[in-house]
């Protein structure tokens, strides 16, 4: 009988084509949208992790309470000790210390007088070590616009926008004026060896990238840093593992009495990120729910229209002894065939552009005016995940089925005799 119904679907374009187009289009949109939202979220997670939160982050409890800028005097001490403990116990992650600081960068001329000056935020990472991890993490090779990466102590990179705005030259010396860990004034000389594009507007406006050891000297931070970041060696954030590692670490080392004792937080626990991702998830859910609703309504009407066109057929089948219930079930079976075919087609159709957007992305730097808190990359990409293969598929089949369920009910409710009236004429 299924074969008989399928033949009918294939031969009667009105019965199959329009619903198929609706399902295919709806499913394609869901899949594409989801891949896009997922890509944007994934992009954000990746960027935020690389620049800010790590997959997990260790700071002093005092720093953890600060939401934005971390004062240098709340830094973590005995960094080497903590690093060796972390590397020892949690070898599934890379561990790296970083320091964030702020200050004024002053560029003197030949006579030693200020020729240019500007406020900067600074990021001090392990730039010089041979493992190259942080250089990879921050994608420095690609980000470099002019000059070269630092090879020696005392060399820094500045953001390209800042570099151009202040008319800087490569090899120019720069003086950082800031506060040290004890609260005293700190002055330290650097050499600008290159300019980079962070791809993040918040940093591009005025940021410097220095080696960690230099900054420890400059700011009088002996064996201290703002934070220790952990990155999963596989490259992807693993929610459950991260939570487990943080819990284990905190159970052992967190001392609520001592504000300078360390605490580990997963990236989701930091800032507003957790809420943000929850928002994205519920947004995806809402979008899908809306699509299912609209599709079901359209398919319901399509079902009614095709049901009306088919009163003759349904009447004949009833005369041949099919019960109304059986006819209803066969209409549902037809809808399942269309739902599965349309959802399959729609998924396939969407994966092609989604994959394209994953590889090439769209540059959105023009659209972003300012961004605080979360760091965004300028190129937004879609992401095809295992979820893409059924996130549209299941709602597509469901909506088709739902549409047939409602429209079929109308036909089901009609009296047998009335169906036969249509046969008389």
């Amino acid at each position, binding site marked *: 009988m299924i074969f008989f119904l399928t033949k009918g679907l294939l031969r009667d374009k009105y019965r199959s084509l329009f619903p198929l187009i609706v399902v295919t289009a709806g499913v394609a949109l869901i899949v594409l949208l989801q891949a896009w939202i997922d890509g944007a979220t994934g992009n954000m997670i990746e960027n935020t992790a690389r620049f800010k939160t790590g997959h997990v982050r260790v700071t002093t409890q005092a720093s953890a309470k600060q939401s934005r800028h971390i004062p240098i005097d709340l830094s973590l001490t005995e960094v080497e000790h903590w690093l060796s403990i972390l590397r020892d116990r949690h070898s599934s992650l890379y561990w790296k210390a970083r320091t964030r600081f702020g200050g004024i960068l002053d560029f003197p001329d030949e006579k030693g007088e200020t020729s240019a000056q500007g406020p900067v935020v600074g990021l001090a990472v392990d730039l010089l070590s041979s493992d190259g991890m942080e250089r990879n993490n921050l994608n420095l090779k690609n980000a470099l616009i002019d000059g070269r990466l630092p090879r020696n102590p005392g060399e820094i990179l500045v953001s390209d926008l800042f570099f151009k705005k202040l008319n800087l030259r490569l090899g120019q010396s720069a003086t950082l004026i800031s506060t040290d860990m004890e609260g005293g004034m700190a002055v330290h000389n650097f050499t600008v060896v290159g300019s980079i594009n962070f791809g993040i507007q918040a940093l591009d406006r005025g940021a410097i990238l220095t080696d960690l050891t230099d900054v420890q000297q400059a700011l009088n931070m002996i064996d201290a840093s703002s934070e220790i970041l952990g990155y999963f060696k596989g490259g992807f954030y693993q929610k459950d593992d991260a939570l487990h590692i943080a819990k284990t670490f905190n159970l052992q080392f967190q001392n609520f009495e001592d504000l300078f004792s360390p605490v580990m937080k997963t990236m989701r626990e930091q800032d507003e990120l957790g809420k943000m991702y929850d928002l994205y998830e519920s947004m995806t859910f809402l979008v899908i729910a809306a699509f299912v609703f609209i599709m079901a309504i359209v398919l319901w009407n399509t079902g009614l229209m095709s049901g009306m066109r088919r009163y003759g057929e349904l009447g004949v089948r009833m*005369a*041949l002894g099919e019960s109304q219930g059986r006819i209803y079930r066969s209409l549902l079976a037809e809808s399942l065939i269309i739902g599965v075919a349309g959802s399959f087609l729609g998924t396939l159709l969407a994966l092609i552009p989604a994959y394209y957007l994953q590889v090439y992305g769209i540059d959105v730097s023009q659209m972003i005016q300012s961004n605080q808190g979360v760091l965004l990359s300028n190129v937004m990409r879609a992401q095809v995940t295992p979820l893409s293969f059924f996130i549209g598929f299941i709602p597509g089949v469901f909506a088709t089925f739902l549409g047939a369920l409602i429209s079929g009910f109308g036909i089901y409710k009609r009296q047998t005799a009335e169906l036969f009236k249509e046969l008389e004429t």
Partner: protein
Amino acid sequence: MSGEPIISIHHLNKKFPMAGGNFYALSQINLSFQTAEFAGLVGPSGSGKTTLLNLIGTLDRASEGEIKILGKELGQLSTKEAAEMRMKVLGFIFQTHNLLPIYTVYENVELPLLLLKWQASDRHKAVMKTLDWVGLTDKVKSRPPQLSGGQCQRAAIARVMVKGPGIVLADEPTANLDAENSHSVLQTMKRLNQELKTTFLFSTHDEKVIRYLDRKITLEDGKIIEDEIQNK
């Protein structure tokens, strides 16, 4: 005539609710039919012929009285049991052939057997044999729009006969056919009636049909006014 009737009708009334009271489309019908009868309901338009056929065909329900088919009282059947009665015992032929246009002649005739869940090989044998009876073996792969009116009506007869129903209800089966096709269709039905002992019950105005009938039942205003045996 003798033996247990295949159809028996007692004190049957059918009323339709109308503005200002009920309208009786059938009143006090008493009738019975034996196996292999070739009978017809005749009478003016609106006399209740179709209404009676629909009641016997389980497509509608009686208001009062009873109809029994093979001893089963139709009023007692659930919708599912009524559907089963249509599937196994009854066959309908309408004024229009009502073949499904997107299916071939073969597929149209095969449909009742699909519903009865016959085996594929049995289906094939039965369909080919029936199409041979009605003389349509060369149109197996054609679709209804490609056939003439007479051929369509013969295909519709094949669709009814393929499962060997006990009773065939035919509502004005020749109304859309010319004289020549009417005769060929009626001859086919008559032959099936004699060879398979199928009971035929017609509703008709058509003199050509009336001449073929063994029994002519005349209705007027929902009442039987005459019931006569002819041709014997």
